[in-house]
């Protein structure tokens, strides 16, 4: 196997793959394939996806996280992705930015969740410099104390992926499909979705955000433009990604579990 050049001018090389309107399941499959079968660093920017889609983390339980009856009624697709973390609903207004890196891209960076999260915040601190009150709050990107981006990661022996779905804009009604999560950051302080999140478009134009993100990435990497064809390799041909669309039967079973859970809670003896 030929060893490709991995650094230039002291900075690691990264392939920049710009997509537009790629379905989120296809994006997740691409990311997992690149994580597991590529030896290069990748930055993927997907400018919006297709129809509204719910994306849960690897251990997400639909009966705990979703208003399933509404989801089924309105035929909202539900995906379980390969990374950890919480639940988001994405649509044409969402901007996705993903980093897939070798551990040795930054030898001083420990490949554990918190250091990678902190590293990523350096990128966006630069993006929002002079524009908004950006910070990393617990594990969320916030403007002030309002979350505008959901993060998740997957870490393997020699590589990691850190991906973000940015709420550049969203439909208020879509948030009604998501329950308040049991596990929430302290700074959320029991706020409902609409009081907790904000629209990035109120702070920065869409193309401006994408351009500034690419510039910020360029301060940590040497960028090379890539296309989807470049993401294919012989190793990737037999790879089977784990992110998948939940079947209707699974969602219906989740309704049953949700009702059983409520029935148990209702019939539990009251504490004296």
């Amino acid at each position, binding site marked *: 196997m030929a060893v490709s050049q991995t650094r230039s001018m002291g900075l690691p090389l990264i392939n920049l793959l710009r997509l537009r309107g790629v379905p989120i399941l296809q994006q997740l499959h691409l990311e997992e394939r690149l994580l597991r079968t590529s030896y290069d660093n990748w930055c993927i920017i997907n400018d919006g996806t297709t129809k509204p889609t719910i994306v849960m*983390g690897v251990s997400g339980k639909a009966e705990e996280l979703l208003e399933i009856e509404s989801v089924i009624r309105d035929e909202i697709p539900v995906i379980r992705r390969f*990374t*950890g973390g919480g639940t988001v609903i994405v649509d044409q207004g969402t901007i996705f930015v993903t980093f897939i890196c070798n551990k040795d891209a930054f030898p001083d960076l420990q490949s554990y969740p918190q250091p990678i999260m*902190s590293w990523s915040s350096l990128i966006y601190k630069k993006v929002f410099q002079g524009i908004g009150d950006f910070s990393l709050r617990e*594990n969320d990107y916030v403007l002030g104390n309002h979350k505008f981006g959901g993060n998740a990661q997957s870490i393997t022996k020699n590589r990691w992926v850190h991906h973000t779905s940015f709420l550049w804009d969203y439909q208020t009604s879509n948030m009604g499909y998501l329950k308040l999560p049991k596990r929430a950051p302290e700074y959320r302080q029991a706020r409902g979705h609409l009081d907790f999140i904000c629209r990035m478009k109120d702070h920065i134009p869409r193309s401006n955000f994408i351009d500034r993100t690419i510039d910020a990435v360029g301060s940590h990497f040497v960028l090379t433009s890539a296309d989807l064809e470049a993401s294919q390799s012989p190793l990737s041909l037999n790879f089977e990604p784990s992110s998948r669309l939940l079947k209707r039967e699974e969602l219906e079973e989740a309704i049953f579990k949700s009702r059983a859970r409520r029935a148990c809670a209702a019939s539990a003896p009251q504490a004296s």
Partner: protein
Amino acid sequence: MALRMWASSTANALKISTAASKSGLVSPAFSLSRCFSTVLEGFKYANSHEWVKHDGPVATIGITDHAQDHLGEVVFVELPEAGKPVTQGDSFGSVESVKATSDVNSPISGEVVEVNTKLSETPGLINTSPYEDGWMIKVKPSNPSELESLMGAKEYTKFCEEEDASH
């Protein structure tokens, strides 16, 4: 520009784990490491922070105190079924913590003979008891000589210290 990133163990720099003192294992000596994660004598360690305890025909595998400390609260564990093969250095499962899934790699090759089913209900055992109740799989080794390629307690302690010092 050298990146000096904050590592989660910094916040716990003064913590000294005494998990081994409550051990159900037969009197393992424990060493206090300068990185303040517990490392047990008699165990072998991989550079990806898994431990293995070889006991007769079976080896028990889990992740180290250093690993659980850096990962944060474990909320979900994915494990293979009994009967599946594992290969030294390859992933056999994963843990979810914070917003990340992290592969867990097998220090040795063999066949899974038992899986810790308690971890599905109580994944936090990996945090509270990484070397005892938080064990992940038991394996029948196919090549016991692989154990010789792993680090002992002192070597692993030094490895952790050097890794943390360089970040």
